[in-house]
């Protein structure tokens, strides 16, 4: 199985390492070559420097044979466009897009894009934790 990960920050690099340990062939793309250090000293996969919406670069990274594409750059809109291109131009079966803004996340999820929204997860998690605290005098409705 081959995965293409665009954006090698905290999230992208961690997924890359995890998938690689699970036996995936992983190609990582980031616009900054320093990001490679996040993958440790012995990264066995490929690492390409460039813009994630550059079609030539995506081809070079093997998007045409990729089973999965993960868009995890620090730009919501960049991730959305990468997701659209991976889905519609390259027909990648599994495309996952990170979108921090819950409003845009909801809109694109409703259009059929697989979205992970860390902000929404944080909001829900925090709210849930607050509810589970027994704060005197505050009635919670779970």
């Amino acid at each position: 199985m081959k995965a293409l990960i665009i954006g090698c920050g905290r999230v992208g690099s961690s997924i890359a390492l995890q998938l690689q340990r699970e036996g995936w062939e992983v190609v990582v793309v980031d616009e900054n070559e320093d990001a490679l250090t996040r993958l440790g000293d012995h990264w066995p996969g490929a690492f390409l420097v460039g813009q994630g919406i550059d079609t030539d670069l995506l081809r070079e990274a093997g998007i045409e044979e990729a089973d999965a594409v993960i868009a995890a750059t620090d730009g919501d809109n960049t991730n959305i466009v990468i997701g659209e291109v991976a889905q519609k131009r390259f027909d990648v079966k599994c495309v996952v897009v990170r979108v921090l803004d819950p409003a845009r996340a909801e809109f694109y999820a409703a259009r059929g894009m697989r979205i992970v929204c860390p902000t929404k997860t944080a909001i829900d998690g925090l709210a849930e934790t607050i509810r589970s605290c027994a704060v005197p005098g505050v009635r919670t409705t779970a």
Partner: protein
Amino acid sequence: MYVVVAGGGKVGANVARSLLRLGHEVTLIEQRRDRFDRLEDEFEHQVQRGDATELFVLERAGLARPPDIVLALTGDDEDNMVICQLAKEKYGAPKVIARVNDPRNQAHFDLLGISPTVCATSSIMALVEHEVPEHDLIHLLELRKENLEIVEVQIDRDSPSAGKRVETLELPEGSRLISVMRNGQAEIAVGSTMLEAGDQVLAILEPGKEDELRRVLLRT
């Protein structure tokens, strides 16, 4: 007409200014604080500060009305694509126009059905091509929606098509000759039209068939 302009750089601010002068209602959206402060002096309540890809910013600018036109003119192509998608699909804006900053992203705009688009680099290149005489095939018009283009070629003495009737030419599939200009007179090209050296011929074709067309008309 109500127009929302996203992006208050040179392009966006000038477009907004021109629209206001024509008497239209305009809301300009600019994210950067320094730019916004300058724009506010001139545009006052008609400029709003915020990220035009955020739904609440768009809604504050009246996207829900919706505007008659939304112009995505920021310096970031991904932002412009998302602004157009939100304007059209979420708010039902009847018309969007997008600026393409990097011509390599044109294909993405096309893929997402965002049209019309304006790209300064492509426009300049088209004009240059029109001026450079070595280019034997000149792009006159791109009909993006139809996926067709109109080109002009000049037939010269060595052209294989000189002295032949249009119906005898093996034109590539998906192409037609439109007209022939000779001695300042244009005529619609029909099957019996004879091509001659010096003719300026207009052709309509699917983009990508240029080389085939060039081979039939110009090269032996």
